């Protein structure tokens, strides 16, 4: 959404990423030779159906899934082997289900302080308050537990926790698909605001074309562990897809998706 300078060096650069699960006869390639680049300040989408490997890519970047790649540069560092604390300061992840991502028996304040302690963040308390403010959570919620919050509040806590290290990159794994549409709107607005304020780069996994069209400028379409094509979202939603699979995905999304009359008569917003 912010000015993405396409001429600058990409902040995420991945070439020929391979992720394999299982061994011997059970070996299965979840991601087989994926390459893409994300520029600073951009929101880049990974779209596809379940099992296409889109979430696995995020897990591979953070080191949660063992992987091989010819190139994997994130925020200026080669991260193919070891990821130091510095990496996790710069790259944070927000998961689909905030209830599973938060510790059920830690207060909201402790959820924020824990990563600060692990990453030796000096001004943890000040940052904790600032993080809560920037996600729009009241300080009255500090001593509550996750089960005492609504789904949207929980996702705000997860985002606040990701902000504690003042990262450059957020990896967003279906961040709103577990939320109601009215809450989804709030969280998507929040993500856009944070990007404007902090110049964050988002790599966003989603199966929802509406969300991708709203958030992303470019997206990769994945199927069976490979990127079928990478294109501008404008082109994607306006019939610019060149691959059969992408066309099929769009057709299926639109069959019972947005009303085509919305397309013919765009309403002022």
């Amino acid at each position, binding site marked *: 959404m912010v000015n993405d300078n396409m001429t600058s060096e990409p902040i995420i650069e991945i070439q020929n990423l391979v992720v394999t699960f299982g061994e011997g006869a059970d070996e299965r390639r979840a991601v087989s030779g994926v390459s893409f680049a994300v520029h600073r300040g951009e929101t880049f989408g990974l779209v596809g159906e379940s099992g296409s490997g889109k979430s696995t890519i995020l897990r591979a970047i953070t080191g949660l899934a063992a992987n091989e790649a010819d190139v994997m540069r994130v925020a200026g560092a080669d991260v193919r082997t070891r990821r130091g604390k510095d990496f996790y300061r710069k790259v944070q992840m927000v998961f689909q289900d905030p209830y599973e991502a938060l510790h059920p028996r830690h207060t909201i304040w402790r959820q924020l302080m824990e990563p600060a302690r692990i990453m030796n963040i000096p001004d943890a308390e000040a940052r904790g308050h600032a993080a809560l403010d920037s996600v729009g959570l009241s300080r009255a919620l500090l001593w509550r537990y996750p089960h005492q919050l609504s789904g949207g509040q929980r996702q705000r806590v997860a985002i606040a926790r990701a902000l504690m290290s003042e990262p450059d990159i957020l990896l967003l794994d279906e961040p709103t698909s577990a939320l109601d549409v*009215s809450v989804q709107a709030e969280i998507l*607005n929040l993500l856009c605001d944070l990007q404007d304020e902090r110049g964050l780069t988002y790599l966003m996994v989603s199966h929802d074309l509406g969300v991708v069209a*709203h958030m992303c400028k470019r997206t990769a379409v994945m199927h069976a562990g490979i990127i079928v094509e990478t294109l501008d979202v404008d082109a994607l939603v306006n019939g610019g897809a060149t691959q059969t699979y992408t066309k099929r995905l769009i057709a299926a999304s*639109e*069959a*019972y998706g947005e009303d085509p009359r*919305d*397309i013919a008569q765009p309403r002022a917003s």
Partner: protein
Amino acid sequence: MDNPLLSVRDLRVSFHGAAGIFDAVRGVSFDLGREKLGIVGESGSGKSMTGRAIMRLSPPAAIVRAEAIRLGDIDILGASERTMDAIRGRRIGLIMQDPKYSLNPVVTVGEQIAEAYRIHSHSSTSDARQKATAMLGAVQIRDPERVYRMYPHEMSGGMGQRIMIAMMLVSEPEILIADEATSALDVTVRLEILNLLNDLVAKRGLGLIFISHDLNLVRRFCDRVLIMYRGRVVETLKAGELDQATHPYTRGLLEAMPRIHVPRRRLPVLKRDAAW
């Protein structure tokens, strides 16, 4: 509506808990004909509780009251457990979100469909087997003979949901309740399942209650839509006329959805009114 398949009047479902009484459903009324009736709402709106109450499958702690829930001549709330056994599965089928949790993991899917048929029709084992195999064909499963012998863990999500539909349709119910039946499916699979449901409603004259959180889906798929908010039906509309919704809640939901072809800088946020 003349001769509705199902008639619900002033349905109320409440729970008595430590924090007092919680009203999950607060006076819902509607008639179901041979149509696709959508019930849309966000989490906690009472849409699933409404569906469960119709089958008398509410949680034990729930207190269910209604002026009437009538299936033909039968008063569901006053019916004996025996009568309900004959209604559940036989006259009203229920398909839930995730087939993984609805199918018995240690029985082949074919036998599960055959069992559903045998129980309701008191037919022979071989008849039931034949009927189940034919039903697998009817829900567009290729090679039904082979799939009959497969176990639930060998199914993809789409196949599992077809099995559930086959199991619910084998006893030829008049009403099918689909509770977020396609929400866990990928879009391409979802499309196939919806087309299948659409054909079945058209061919067999079923009444379908389609419970969903997805406004876009419901407005394209259903004939009529009830919009629920905090246990009440706030608005009833023809699905094609959802754009003309007047209730601020419905309008707010429609506005809050990202639109593929209408880029907006910010999404309008729903402002909830305590009076709704």
